[in-house]
């Protein structure tokens, strides 16, 4: 899950340039004179006077949904995975969406939410960054009991938090398990790499699931793990990808906010890659295997439809393949035939609820995690607090 990204600014001017392109051509054709400036200002004012506030968020009968992003919507990663789903939400009739990007996890996000509620009339708000929840979304939920707020984590608990707040969570570890199955069978050397952001439970869990997937089809394979230290450090991510390629890994997977740089670097080095969060297939036409993608569309559209029908929203909505909340990127050229078949089977098994953590499972220090003959369900609470790496991973939690 992302934290504020200082480097996301770099992409903005490019976006501005793109969105302004039409205007730029007009300008060069007509030239800017003082007269056109004044003319523009007066027509603007006239439009304003006749239509009320510019771009008013929607008619009174529309359901206004606010979405807040910590970075830019086109980051090839976490934020884009939400933005893609929001595009689908916009197609729901009777829904009007207001979006704000690059909102840091400070008082700024509290103010953005208030502004959406007070000035735009938002009735449902999705705050999509981890650090938005406590204290900001909790406070706003208490302040505005008639507004629904939802956060993409499992942090909400009925005894601690207001009832108009809640969580939705896509169990990406299931999709990483499928990544692992495909990666293990697409690797020739059995040496696989993994670039991860931080050694926190959420990330450790996806790495462990990946490893279990790898060993499912390729029992002798190992995974070399590098932590970059934060959610979005493109330079470190490129260094890590290069280091793993140089260490002889022929497949590398990842869990960072935006794997763009990793996937591009690996493609240049001739190493196969697995994606994360959203589709990176276009970045690696030769080496892309498959990717773990969230499918928030299911939640966003579902929630908007529930509210439109006047039905209450669930406080907790979690799921993986079984609830259509995660999906795998269509196979790329890097996936072997065997990998495609095994990964497709793995998806079907997960959809049917077959557990990934079936014993015996040890951690990479030899401690027993799951005893032989027993299994942890895919939503077992023990997995939420993982602080170990399973056998086969070359790396350390600290």
């Amino acid at each position: 899950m992302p934290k504020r990204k200082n480097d996301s600014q770099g992409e903005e001017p490019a976006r501005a340039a793109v969105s302004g392109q039409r205007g730029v051509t007009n300008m060069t054709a007509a030239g800017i004179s003082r007269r056109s400036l004044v003319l523009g200002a007066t027509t603007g004012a006239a439009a304003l006077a006749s239509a009320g506030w510019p771009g008013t968020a929607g008619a009174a009968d529309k359901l206004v949904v606010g979405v807040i992003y910590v970075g830019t919507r086109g980051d090839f990663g976490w934020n884009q995975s939400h933005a893609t789903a929001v595009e689908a939400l916009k197609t729901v009739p009777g829904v009007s969406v207001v979006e704000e990007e690059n909102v840091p996890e400070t008082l700024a996000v509290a103010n953005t939410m208030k502004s959406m509620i007070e000035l735009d009339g938002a009735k449902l708000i999705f705050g999509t960054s981890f650090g938005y929840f406590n204290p900001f979304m909790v406070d706003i939920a208490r302040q505005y009991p008639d507004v629904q707020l939802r956060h993409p984590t499992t942090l909400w608990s009925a005894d601690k938090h207001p009832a108009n707040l809640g969580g939705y969570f896509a169990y990406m570890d299931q999709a990483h398990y499928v990544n692992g199955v495909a990666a293990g069978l697409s690797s020739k050397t059995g040496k696989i790499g993994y670039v991860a952001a931080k050694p926190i439970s959420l990330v450790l869990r996806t790495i462990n699931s990946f490893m279990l997937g790898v060993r499912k089809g390729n029992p002798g394979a190992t995974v070399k793990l590098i932590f970059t230290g934060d959610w979005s450090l493109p330079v470190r991510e490129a260094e890590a990808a290069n280091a793993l390629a140089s260490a002889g890994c022929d497949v590398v997977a990842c869990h960072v906010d935006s794997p763009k740089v990793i996937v591009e670097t690996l493609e240049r080095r001739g190493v196969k890659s697995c994606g994360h969060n959203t589709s990176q297939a276009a970045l690696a036409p030769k080496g892309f295997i498959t990717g773990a993608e969230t499918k928030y569309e299911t939640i966003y559209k579902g929630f908007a439809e529930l509210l439109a029908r006047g039905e209450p929203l669930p406080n907790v909505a979690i799921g993986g393949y079984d609830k259509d909340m995660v999906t795998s990127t269509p196979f790329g050229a890097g996936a072997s035939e065997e990998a495609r078949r095994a990964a497709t089977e793995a998806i079907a098994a997960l959809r049917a609820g077959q557990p990934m953590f079936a014993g015996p499972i040890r951690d990479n220090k030899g401690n027993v995690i799951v005893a032989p003959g027993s299994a942890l369900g895919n939503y077992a609470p023990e997995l939420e607090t993982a602080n170990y790496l399973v056998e086969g991973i070359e790396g350390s939690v600290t």
Partner: protein
Amino acid sequence: MRGADELRRAAEFVVVPALALAISAAIFSAILLAMGQSPAAFFQLLWRGAFGTAFSWQNTLQRAAPLILTALCVALPARAGLMIIGGEGAFVMGGLAAATAALPLLGWAPAPLVLLLMAIAGTAAGALWIGLVGVLRHRRGVNETIASLLLAYIAVAVLSFLVEGPLRDPASPNKPSTHPIGAETMLGPIPGTSVHWGLVAGLIACLAAHVLISRTTTGFAIRIAGGNPHAALGQGLPVGRLLVLCCLLAGAAAGLAGFFDVATVHGAANVSLVAGYGFTGILVSFLARHNALAIPPVAILFGGLSAAGGLIQRRLGLPDATVALLEGVIFVTLLTSETLYGRFAIFQPRGARQRP
């Protein structure tokens, strides 16, 4: 006669920035027209989002509060001729120290005592952090700009290390934080508003800094040391000590801002403290020409711009960078406008000669 002259001088400091703001508005309008957007709609939204409603004002002041204190972290050393750009580090260390100081007191000490000790710890940590830069400058001749900037990165690394390691609250598996100080200990907002007390602290600090710089012999000595350190040394002024003093006070201001961020917003130290307040403070201080009294209005201008940014983004569908672009235009125009000072005869004191 003298009174009229002073009025003329004062008018110059109001008219020139106002002119610069008008010019930046014109430049930005041209950019908006080129993007096919209506400048009138833009500025209406800007006004509404920043100052148009009671909520907008609170939003603006909330954003301005930390900037006032971090701008002081630049302004004070600047008067002594030092360019400190690492206020972010003092802010982070202040927040970290404040959260850490609370740990042994939670559960038994009364909230006001905990807050007082947190404030002292935060202020002291910030003061020592930038004070170190002053000492390095004075004793070893280390460039204070680079030293303070690099120390800011070290501060962030120290914060990450401590909150992910020794100081981590085990109940924060996915967002490493120190143990929260708890809602009962946290400092509430100014009654009747949602603005926190950091704003008041900032205003008091600016006033105190103004008195120090303009109305005391120490301040006079600081200005001489900043104007010409060799001449100051020749006069027997303790230049080194003055530099270190300015750095200590500067760091204290940023550290205090860090304390307020923990005590009023986050309730614990974590990487959310690293939000760039220290760096935005540099812009605020430069636009205020390192004048402590000009810092609050400039900080409010910046707070207003960022408060309106969201509304503009949502209503006009403009990218987030639009407001950053406007800030950039204002920044460049205001700095360029500095060359206008002393060029208009109307502002010249009638009793004095023309300025060179």
